[in-house]
């Protein structure tokens, strides 16, 4: 009798993935973030198709044309044009592509480097651990934007160098996280069991421990995407990141400072695009953390 009732109850307990989705979808903000991300990815992928103009083409007869709903707007330029007659909408669309590329490359590079450093520190212990973590501490002492500025000042301005600088300043976060979660996993019995079974260090590191540290790292990557986009845009704004006429959102803002009295749209749209993108990744990351971390569940 008791066995029967247990079997009857079994199908009611949902699978892991569905359970994950259910607790993720419970967080409406996270779903909104995911939605915005999907739209951004589609826009970025189809930029060549959907952008009405080239992002760098200058329409000499249309300097600072206002958006279509303002007096003097031109239907050819939905969101108006900038100071040298480039179509804002097209620049924003191509900017989305650039921002996602920046976010992706920076986050994945930091993740890989940080994970390797963190795992090495956790596994090697002793001097190696101390040296790696001390260096990370020292990097953390500098305000991240200041450190990024200094690095770019040394390497010279440009998108690639800016991205490199952001990788360096976000590295300590990943390293600390990877080390902390690896250390807590290393203390578990299953790791001891694997070690007793004769697994080598590398195998233990990547095959046994790493998969169990992934959850916090995945969350960190999602939030790191947001940081990377924000920092790269800040560098662009200061004239140290992508150089004109690259349609990078921060760079677009930097060139438009002098027009804030006459042409608000040149200022408003790129920044809003940054805000929306960063917010989407933050919302998504928060939702991911809540869904992955059973401790926070109600």
């Amino acid at each position, binding site marked *: *009798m*008791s066995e029967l*009732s*247990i079997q009857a*109850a079994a199908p*009611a*307990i949902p699978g892991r993935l569905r359970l994950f989705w259910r607790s993720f979808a*419970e967080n409406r903000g996270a779903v909104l973030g995911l939605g915005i991300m999907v739209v951004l990815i589609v826009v970025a992928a189809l930029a060549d198709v959907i952008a009405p103009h080239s992002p760098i083409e200058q329409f000499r007869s249309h300097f600072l044309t206002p958006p279509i709903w303002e007096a003097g707007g031109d239907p050819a330029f939905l969101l108006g044009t900038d100071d040298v007659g480039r179509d804002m909408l097209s620049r924003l669309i191509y900017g989305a592509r650039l921002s996602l590329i920046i976010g992706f490359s920076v986050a994945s590079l930091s993740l890989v480097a940080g994970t390797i450093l963190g795992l090495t520190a956790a596994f090697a212990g002793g001097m190696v651990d101390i040296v790696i973590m001390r260096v990370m501490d020292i990097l953390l002492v500098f305000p991240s934007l200041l450190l990024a500025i200094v690095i770019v000042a040394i390497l010279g301005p440009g998108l690639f160098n800016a991205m490199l600088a952001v990788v360096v300043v976000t590295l300590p976060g990943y390293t600390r996280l990877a080390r902390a979660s690896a250390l807590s996993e290393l203390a578990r019995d299953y790791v001891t069991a694997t070690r007793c079974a004769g697994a080598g260090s590398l195998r233990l590191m990547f095959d046994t421990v790493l998969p169990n540290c992934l959850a916090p790292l995945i969350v960190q990557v999602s939030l790191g995407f947001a940081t990377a986009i924000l920092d790269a845009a800040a560098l662009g704004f200061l004239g140290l990141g992508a150089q004109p006429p690259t349609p990078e959102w921060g760079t677009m803002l930097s060139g438009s400072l002098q027009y804030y009295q006459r042409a608000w749209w040149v200022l408003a749209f790129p920044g809003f695009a940054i805000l929306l993108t960063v917010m989407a990744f933050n919302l998504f990351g928060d939702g991911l953390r809540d869904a992955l971390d059973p401790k926070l569940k*109600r």
Partner: protein
Amino acid sequence: MALLEIRNLAVEFATARGRFRAVDGVDVTIDEGEILCVVGESGSGKSVSMLAVMGLIAWPGRVTADVMRFAGTDLLGLPSRQRRKLVGKDMAMVFQEPMSSLNPCYPVGWQIAEALRAHNAVAKPKVRDRVVELLDQVGIPAPASRMGAFPHQLSGGMNQRVMIAMAIACNPRLLIADEPTTALDVTIQKQILDLLISLQKQGGMALALITHDMGVVAETAQRVQVMYAGQMVEEQLTDSLFSAPRHPYTAALLDALPERAMGRARLPTIPGVVPGIDDRPSGCLFNPRCRFVQERCLTTPPQLEGPAGARARCHTPLDAAGQPTGVAA
């Protein structure tokens, strides 16, 4: 008149998967100066029902009852400000986890004094003396110097003594102790239990002791309530409960005591677990685990029936020989 009288108490929690009744149809009666034991496995709702008495069920929990009266005062209709004047003064509670039940930020003496000040139990200049007296009363050595200690500087047993001192600070008429010894070392358990009993005798207060330890029940209680899956399944005087349990669940609990299993090769256990939110059976909640399960147990929920002071929630309550009654052979 009973000190505490509750009829048909229910506590519901709103969860993601609908409403869950943690406590359902519980009656509690405690007389002045009496010791009542509430027993049951973990998750049987014994703590929750007592928290409901204290008014400590937080949102999203909901408490309902037909009657809930303490010393003649109706608790249900009482405005929360009035109710707070009772709680901590006339009725007090000691919890299961002494280490986490004390605020880590404040010295223990301060926390006891706070209970005194909240109810103006003693004149302000005397608060300090009273705290020392209380700490001494619960058997803490060098009480004056321990007042400034933080909870993390004391052992679990010491912290539980502090908790007890805090609970009896205002000389309550009812003390509820929620598994006060479960988190402690075995050697300390007995000391704390003895302390509670002696305080109960000295102060003449009523004591409601929640436990899952039948040994504790046998030693301390005058009357016993057995809880299962949020329901009260049996109520008896201690002696008759041990000699002639009427509910199959109580009988199974008693059979699982090592002292009673002398001479047997294996200690009997109760198969299965207490039903949770997903697997509540229809009919009697105990039917998946009951030895004497009948057809009607699967469909009809039994009511609490029997002579006053010996009621059981069973279609076929056991007789003195431990055999089900009212079964068509």
